[in-house]
């Protein structure tokens, strides 16, 4: 019945916890690009690829007690959220595996851990560049577009170069497909 939430639950079980909804969105987006068992539809907007369906699913998992959301308020008043699997969420994963439901996430757990180790800022850049290049932009055009439309992020040339290298290393640069 709740198989729909299984890929997300598996992802959280692997990485332990994720800081911030924006970061969670980008990790799922990149995992999907890597062939993971995620079917949410992403659209591009100001902050990069975003899925309304994924956002709704996360809220549903919270409502069903499959997910824990822990809010922290910084001294400046900024609220940040951390997500992890609840006890019921872990039970869902365990019982799904036991009942024979296909519980493969379809992506290397190490990949998820690597993505989770990056900051939201890095992931936003990597995900945005990937999305734009998959839409047909050359690397240089994608970098220009990101710098133009995310000017307030002040991404440096060095950061963009590193992001492109990351994508290439992960086999996610459409201009340099992994053999």
């Amino acid at each position, binding site marked *: 019945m709740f198989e729909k939430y299984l890929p997300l639950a598996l992802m959280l079980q692997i990485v332990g916890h994720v800081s911030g909804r924006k970061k969670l969105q980008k990790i799922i987006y990149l995992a999907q690009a890597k062939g993971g068992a995620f079917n949410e539809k992403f659209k591009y*907007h100001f902050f990069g690829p975003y899925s309304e369906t994924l956002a709704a699913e996360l809220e549903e998992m919270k409502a069903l007690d499959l997910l824990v959301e822990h809010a922290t308020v910084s001294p400046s008043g900024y609220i940040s959220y951390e997500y992890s699997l609840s006890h019921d969420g872990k039970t869902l994963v365990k019982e799904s595996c036991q009942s024979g439901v296909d519980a493969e996430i379809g992506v290397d757990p190490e990949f998820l851990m690597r993505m989770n180790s990056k900051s939201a800022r890095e992931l936003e850049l990597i995900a945005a560049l990937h999305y734009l290049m998959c839409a047909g932009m050359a690397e240089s055009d994608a970098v220009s577009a990101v710098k133009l439309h995310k000017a307030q992020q002040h991404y440096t040339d060095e950061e963009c170069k590193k992001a492109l290298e990351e994508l290439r290393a992960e086999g996610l640069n459409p201009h340099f497909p992994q053999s």
Partner: protein
Amino acid sequence: MSVNPQSKLFRDPLHGYISIGDDLLPIIDSREFQRLRRVSQLGVSRLTYHGAEHTRFGHSVGVYYLYKRLATELDRRGAPLAQDDLMAGLSAALLHDIGHGPFSHALEGILTPGRNHETWTQEIVTGPTQVNEALKTVDEALPEKVCNILKEGSCSSVLTSLISSQLDADRMDYLLRDSMYCGVSYGRFDVDRLIATIVPHGSSPFIAIDGRGLMAVEGYVLARYFMYWQVYYHKTTRGFECILRELWRYARNKYQNGNLAEQDVPRQIRPFFQEAVTLDDYLNIDDYDIISALKLWQASEDPVLRDMSTRFLRRHRFKSIEFNVNLHFDVQDRIKKVLERYNYTEFQCYMIFDQPSSVAYDYYTAGEEGEKPPILIIDKNGSATEVSKLSEPIKALAGRSKNRFNLYVPEECVLEVESIIRAGR
């Protein structure tokens, strides 16, 4: 601003007269666009709201009209679209839903797994179709321009934002149109005021609202919220959508396993069950073919096909049980035992879980800082602020997602299943 002095008038129940230039009429006259007269806008909502019989055809013409109005307003505000861009945008507005399949979102993802209506739209616009020919007659590069506007990857232009953003022509039309045809007032908002207060914005989302339009935005956001919960996520509608989806899945699996004879699958449906669907196959199918199949299956030897088809055609709905807790596996097992006692052993068909994220429509929620596309309000100093920071009603409504889950089971099982769920908490 005018696209072409020669035009035809379409009498729209919502917007009144809509003028469409002769250069775009071949799109409307195409086989692919005329097919939209046979694809319902709201799928199975007519089983809840009997007036909801409008089609994708009317909606597509309506979106064209609102797109033109928005572009005119931007022009008035000193941000005119270039003539070529305007033509591409208007064409995209007309064609944005050309790829929808029968019953629209009800069968999305099921009819052609891996290819959604946006994918089909791209194929229709660029493929060997009358739409493609019509576009090329205007401009050889027009099909590609239209695709770029409609492609999900497209991000960086006002042309796309006018069709797909938090304040787009698509949403504005379907809220008003669906509201009108369903006979409800929830979806009404002051569209004239909203359009009159649109302002260009230098970066994504490229359009924002002047502060004087805040109340119009509030009405619009409320309209989205109410239409979602009263129409798009109506439990009866969702119940029948679930029936249709599971019935399709069941019939397809039976066919693929060799347990449904060729003559029991209408010719137009077979490519979909064989999962070898060409563009022509897709364009050959509409709402009427699905209904024909259901009528055929009503007389099937298979009891599940017979029962599910009859339920849909005669409006014998499942009952819904609303819940908001996790249903542990042991609770699910107990529910299955109840169903077994009533001889409902195909649990996939008779124990259907539905959740808000399955609905194609959404309503506005603000989200975490920087997480999702905002509705921006521009003050007199030119500063942009996300709307929920300025509006108490929107802040209250859009602050957090509301969740409601439904479990659908046959009526005779509902009391026992309900008590199992309540006891299982």
